[in-house]
């Protein structure tokens, strides 16, 4: 990891002692000591999140509030999403872009209202947060102000039982649908709750004061349906859901079009062509990109891993795997990677290099596992 620190310098989330008490295996991740798995193991944790409710500590992620006279217009200078059209409480997945149209980070932005004024609540990736916040603050200096929320924890509760469990502590969570958020009391504590997540399941992400997080997490864990889930299963869950992992499936060298994220480029924004890298991105939308992110299903049971070369039937190198692993829900290996556009049609047969031999893999539509978001 680029910014790994020695173990002794690792930051701790507000739930660190909870992980240790639950015998998590802690690993360095983006400068934090994070639980990769608990004694139950990744497979069990993964299935628990798909069948009941998984509790994830994602407090390492960056949280901030952006305020300004016309905060949506300001933020749109940095992202291709239609932010101005968001209603209060609406959340959107968007991308911080560089001038070449590459992806600096992916993030969630929610429009909130504070004392009659609009603001944006932002959640960004842990490994990118320092760079993201510096970029936003500098780029929007004089028109918008960024308040980094250092003293907030972020907890995700994901799975088919997430709503029934959270509703006991915050009945108002039932009123939210997918990609909506609202401030509400959770067990008497002020919190901002969004119906969102990174698993493909229905669920919530709860932002609350760091010093209230432990009591909240422990209360959730008193429910039989709730179990702690580590980063290992978080990764296998998001891979099944076809969601990108920043630094692997998307980075500064990939554009939203190549990444299959053109839907995150708003219609009005396309017409205005007023976002970083617009020339490159709009040209790729019009003409098609030279390479695309695709889902892959290797034959057999052997997982293919990040970095594995991908070849076509004529043994020509056409791309490489960016994420790969075993899908506990499907009980077979799955992967995603970039391939040249000519090889990106679902159903096409490609070859992935694995330990000096070739494994056949079919280009597959994503998500691999049908999402169960609550859309209405």
């Amino acid at each position, binding site marked *: 990891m680029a910014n790994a620190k020695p173990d002794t310098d690792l930051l701790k989330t507000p739930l660190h002692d909870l992980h240790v008490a639950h015998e998590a295996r802690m690993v360095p991740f983006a400068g934090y000591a994070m639980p990769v798995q608990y004694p139950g193991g990744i497979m069990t944790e993964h299935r628990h999140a798909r069948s009941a409710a998984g509790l994830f500590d994602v407090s390492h992620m960056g949280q901030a509030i952006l305020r300004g006279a016309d905060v949506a217009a300001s933020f749109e200078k940095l992202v291709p999403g239609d932010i101005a059209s968001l209603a209060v409480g609406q959340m959107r997945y968007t991308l911080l872009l560089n001038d070449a149209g590459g992806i600096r980070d992916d993030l969630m932005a929610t429009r909130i209202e504070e004392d009659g004024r609009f603001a944006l609540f932002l959640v960004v990736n842990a490994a990118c947060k320092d760079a993201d916040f510096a970029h936003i603050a500098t780029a929007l200096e004089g028109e918008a102000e960024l308040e980094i929320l250092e003293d907030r924890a972020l907890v995700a509760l994901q799975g088919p039982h997430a709503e029934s469990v959270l509703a006991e502590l915050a009945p108002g969570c039932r009123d939210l649908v997918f990609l909506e958020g609202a401030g509400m009391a959770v067990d008497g504590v002020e919190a901002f709750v969004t119906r969102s997540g990174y698993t493909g399941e229905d669920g919530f992400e709860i932002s609350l004061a760091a010093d209230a997080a432990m009591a909240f997490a422990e209360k959730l864990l008193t429910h039989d349906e709730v179990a702690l889930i580590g980063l290992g299963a978080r990764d296998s869950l998001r891979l099944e859901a076809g969601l990108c992992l920043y630094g692997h499936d998307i980075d500064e060298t990939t554009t939203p079009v190549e990444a299959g994220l053109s839907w995150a480029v708003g219609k009005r924004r396309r017409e205005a062509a007023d976002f970083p890298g617009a020339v490159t991105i709009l040209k790729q939308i019009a003409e098609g990109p030279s390479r695309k992110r695709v889902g892959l299903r290797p034959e057999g*049971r052997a*997982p293919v891993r990040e970095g594995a070369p991908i070849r076509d039937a004529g043994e020509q190198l056409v791309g490489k795997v960016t994420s790969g*692993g075993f899908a506990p829900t499907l009980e077979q290996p799955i992967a995603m990677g970039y391939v040249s556009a000519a090889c990106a049609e679902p159903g096409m047969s490609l070859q992935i290099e694995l330990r000096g031999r070739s494994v056949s893999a079919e280009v597959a539509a994503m998500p691999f596992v049908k999402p169960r978001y609550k859309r209405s």
Partner: protein
Amino acid sequence: MADRKYTEDHEWVEVDGDAGVIGISDYAQEQLGDVVFVELPDIGKILDQRDEAAVVESVKAAAEVYTPVSGEVIEVNEELNNDPSLVNTDAFGEGWFIKLRLSDPTELEDLMDEATYKTFVAGLN
């Protein structure tokens, strides 16, 4: 039990006559987590001590298994193709990997006995 010998990479070999059964330790399977695939060598393959004998894939990552002793592969555990999780549930028994015909039994002297290995693992935590 008495003749099970270990490497510092957590492989074990159990010798019976001129044949040795090879697997990974309980500590190793715990570190790996849920095993989802094991790649086994072809029967008849000649392996030198420390050669890669198999690859274990967990949900998250791949790990190589090196043979503790030299020899010819005379049997592989086909059951692992049907149920790779045997490595997790019974690392010292049903979760074995390969059987070798030892070419140099003196290599066993390089390996740790049960008590030494236990002390070695305790020192890792």
